[in-house]
């Protein structure tokens, strides 16, 4: 399913789901069991969160032998970046980001 922007934003709009994405970013390709370890929410809740992430194409389940592993898919976030942060703005944003760092460093030095 090709996810529309609403589905992606809705999927991203929950701390638990962002946490799951962070965990896949740290280690890609995890089973449901792996992802449940150390979480304060039930297995059923994790399953539901994963389903929403899958519908948004943010997470892709792939069969590896008998296991179903979950992978982070960079496409939807890449598309958001392409749509709202075009190539040229990216350069400008980086310059602004650097300027901010520099100014903050200078202020820090004066104090």
């Amino acid at each position, binding site marked *: 399913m*090709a996810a529309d922007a609403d589905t992606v934003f809705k999927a991203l709009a929950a701390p638990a789901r962002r946490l799951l994405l962070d965990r896949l970013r740290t*280690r*890609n*390709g995890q089973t449901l069991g792996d992802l449940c370890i150390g979480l304060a929410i039930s297995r059923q809740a994790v399953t539901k969160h994963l389903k929403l992430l899958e519908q948004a*194409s943010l997470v892709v389940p792939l069969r590896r032998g008998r296991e179903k592993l979950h992978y982070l*898919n*960079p496409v939807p976030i*890449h598309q958001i970046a392409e749509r709202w942060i075009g*190539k040229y703005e990216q350069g400008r944003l980086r310059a602004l980001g650097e300027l901010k760092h520099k100014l903050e460093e200078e202020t820090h030095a004066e104090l």
Partner: protein
Amino acid sequence: MPNSEFVYVTYIRTTPEKLWQALTQPEFTRQIWLDTVQESEWKPGAPWRIAKPDGASADSGEVLEIDPPRRLVLCWKNHLFPEMEAEGFSSMSYQLEQQGDMVKLTLTHVMERSESKFIQAVSNGWPIILASVKSLLETGEALAATRRWPEGM
């Protein structure tokens, strides 16, 4: 030891045949893949390589599985960077599935070692190449960023 893996799923409004061509044929790869061409007889066991505009190999390997226009598996070694070449062969697969008027492309790229430098590099490279494939097939024009080999590489 956990593997390093990159997975990418995108949906492209095209046919599996056209997408297969775009990923393998020189007239398309030159536009979407930094002016490179892929050389292979495209059958199981055949050597495969990506030739840079100057003819040297950027990457090379072998066709492990091929079922046009549905599935391709290559073993793949990089030659551009010594530290990535030293990691040896990775395994890359394309799976193409028709879904309505779209094709679901699933790409996996795996290196059997943790924290692979090569997988880290392709994780940055694949999104721009595959975004360009999508642009080319849907609009007729590849992204400007993928039409030239980067200078000095």
